[in-house]
């Protein structure tokens, strides 16, 4: 498609910062919803279906870290100016659809700018945050997990408490805590860890740590860690009516493994 692929040239802010709604209480602190007023530049060949063109253009930013959003874009939903309005002075075409015209400035910018309001789901991990991920690979010196199914996280040996000993036997190996033999971290376990460092340059790689309290395998924590268990139940009550599909699906998945009845 002839649309501009360079996101920098494409999105312009009408306002200096994206407007933030107050973040809802979530166990997954790094996820947040944001609303931004943007101008999306669309090539005239797509004038027949502007909504699709805008959606496609925003989709090129998915899973990339954007400085201006201060996070990774996970999903977006666009509203156009006057979508919910009922103005009589708008022109209406044959199908009853509202028509807005835009001028294309020849010689300056051959694209036309569409002002949109975008609801976005952003992922912006910060150091000290607690994240949850699924273990994919284990080694004597590292644990590799995947957060939200998309982001890779690595926890190095220095950040794994001494009490965890690595056993090579079994499929891929596992870490077993000396203090409680039931606390096992193996491939497929869901773990909670704290963020040490985030590398935003390419794929948002996270370096984590299991040192802080209330980290480790979630299945074990939900049973043995009183504070964590109470936090979950508080979050459950607070979360009714929050429409973050991604995080809800994710929570359901982790709750299944923790065997908690809702």
């Amino acid at each position, binding site marked *: 498609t002839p649309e501009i692929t360079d996101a920098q040239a494409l999105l312009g802010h009408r306002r200096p910062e994206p407007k933030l709604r107050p973040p809802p209480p979530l166990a997954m602190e790094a996820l947040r919803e944001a609303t931004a007023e943007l101008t999306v530049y669309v090539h005239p060949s797509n004038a027949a279906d502007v909504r699709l063109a805008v959606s496609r253009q925003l989709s090129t930013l998915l899973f990339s870290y954007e400085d201006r959003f201060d996070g990774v874009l996970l999903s977006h939903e666009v509203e156009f100016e006057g979508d919910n309005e009922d103005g009589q002075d708008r022109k209406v075409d044959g199908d009853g659809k509202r028509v807005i015209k835009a001028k294309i400035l020849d010689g300056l910018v051959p694209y036309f700018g569409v002002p949109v309001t975008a609801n976005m789901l952003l992922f912006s991990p910060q150091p000290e945050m607690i994240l949850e991920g699924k273990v994919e690979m284990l080694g004597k010196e*590292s644990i590799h997990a995947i957060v939200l199914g998309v982001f890779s996280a690595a926890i190095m040996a220095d950040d794994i408490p001494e009490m965890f000993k690595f056993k090579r036997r079994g499929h891929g190996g596992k870490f077993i805590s000396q203090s409680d033999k039931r606390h096992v971290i193996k491939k497929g376990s869901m773990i909670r860890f704290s963020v040490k460092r985030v590398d935003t*340059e390419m794929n948002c790689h996270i370096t984590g740590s299991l040192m802080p309290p209330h980290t480790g395998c979630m299945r074990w924590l939900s049973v043995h860690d009183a504070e964590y268990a109470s936090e979950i139940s508080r979050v459950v009550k607070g979360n009714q009516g929050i429409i973050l599909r991604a995080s809800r699906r994710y929570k359901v998945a982790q709750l299944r493994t923790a065997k908690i009845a809702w």
Partner: protein
Amino acid sequence: KTLETSRLASPPPGAEAMVAELRRDDMAEEAGTIRDSVAFRLVERVLQSVRMEPFLIAPYDLEQYRMMVGTLDTSRTKNRDDEALYVTYLKALSEAVSKIDITYHHSLLNNIFAVRIWYLQRDTMVALLDLITRLAAVADQYLRECLQMLVNNFTPPIVERNEVPTWAVSRKKDIFSHLCGSLKTISDTVPLAPRMLRDIIDRSMPKLFDNKAKMISFVECMLGLDTDRMGDLIGAILLAKVVDLLTELDVNITWEDILQEEHDKGIFEMELEDLDADDDGDGFGQAGTKVCLGGNACAEKLDGLMVVVCEHLKSLDRQRLYKEFVILKTIFRASLLRVHRSKFAQFIMFYTCSLDPKTLGEGFAVFLTDIVTEKKEDPISRMSAVSYVGSYLSRARFISADTVVTILKKLVDWCVDYCDHQSKREATPIPNHQLFYATCQAVMYVLCFRLRSIMDYPNLKSDLFHMPFGFLFRHRLEPLKVCLPSIVNEFLRQAKDAGLVAAFVDPAAEDAIESDLSRTFGGINRLDMFFPFDPYLLKESDRYIRPNFEFWSMVKTTYSDDTDDDDDELEDLDAPEMNVGSLDDHVEIDINSDDDDLEYSMNKMSITPHHSFLHQMAMDSDGGLSMPARIRPSTSPPSRWAMSGESP
């Protein structure tokens, strides 16, 4: 720890001491663990010690580091001890990845990323790939290099005479499966890695003039990635790239190359060294065709790649095959459909459809027909699609008569609508009715091949007879006068025998060679003379196509019961030795036959262009003719069937 340090501090240098220590304990499993942990601690220590500005490093530490780097240098040959040490270092490094720093351990990383896996022993390779996988998982900064290193190893080392050494060929499968396995592990651990991999493969893709063995090896390995999750993510892009490459090779094979007499063709000279110099006059059929496909490097490469792609398609399971088919259709529509006279690349669609005739075969026919009848499509695609539909339905043995009649009905209905539309708008005539004539021609072409078999089914026969052919052929647009005479005449002959068309047809039209109207259509390169699925000429990949391909000589016509001797002649044409591979036959044309007849015979169905070119050569040379070997004319009195069928 102090003990260890002191042991290492004394001469002889640490490496040898370590080796000695390692070999001392190579019995028990426990000793193995000790060895690993010793190695690990050593490596860790060395890495840590050089993790600072160069001028701050103690000379001894630097020496240790340099020695370690030297062991990891694969450009020098290793003896057994060195090899064992190398493997140990690799394993130790795998566990110490977090200690590796991109700046301070630059030379170490260089040595790791420069490795050519093909030269390694199997165990070493496994250890190295494990290291690469862990490096990729530990931090983003190594990811690109790791992926690039793996992709660089898709191609085997090339030695003299542009050949792949035999030991590489036998290890190929093993190495490919390991490479693909590593890439998949990386993509599992770093889910966003396929995006980067896609770009890297894009950049590393072999180009048109690259070495054949490298090209084939790369594509083979690349297609190995097209499974499971990785296939879902980037499979479509990979296939698109492969088809692009096939198309590029295809368009670089010219017909002049195929019919070329001379051997020295400039850049292809290198390849011709293999040919024997037995290009005496009458052996033209042999050496000539060898030149045509042996001397043309692009054809050879295309041949090899087609084999790889067909093998890949064959290996897919049902579900995956359906997904690939959808992807292939999209790619086909976007690129292949619009290529002007592609020769062989389109046969991947043919082969894919043959793998599941019921679903895919029919699906493709319907897909093509929809393009033809869709007003919104651009004219070039529609013209091309109609040529494809005609050629496909005729040549694909696996398509049932049922499907053929359904599609024909759609096409005929479209033609009739077109005619009606024409009658209404008399004011502004369209300059040419190319698509209409092309569709009529396609319908007639299909019926030449299929009429007899359709007649065998009473319900299909009645469907066919209900189609308004009379209306079409009597319309003022006069399709019979404009379409290719050879096709029209053959069709009329069969149709009359079957009783499909009444005797309304003007007898004079039967013998017309080429009417003025059809000439005005644009001469030799006109689109309606494009038959995409004409007989396949590439040697090695032919075995995938041949079982499903319908040669003209195999077709039973409606009148064939009458003339038995025709059948006998035709039987010769498909004898096994008619393969392009065995070119021992003399290819002679009985040029003493009637001029008209010869020209007419040359204008037979399924002949793609350059008739006049061929004719010219026939007239010029005496006795040898550079026509590819499928033609074997009979020496009996010149009959129409002497030259039927298989010329390119």
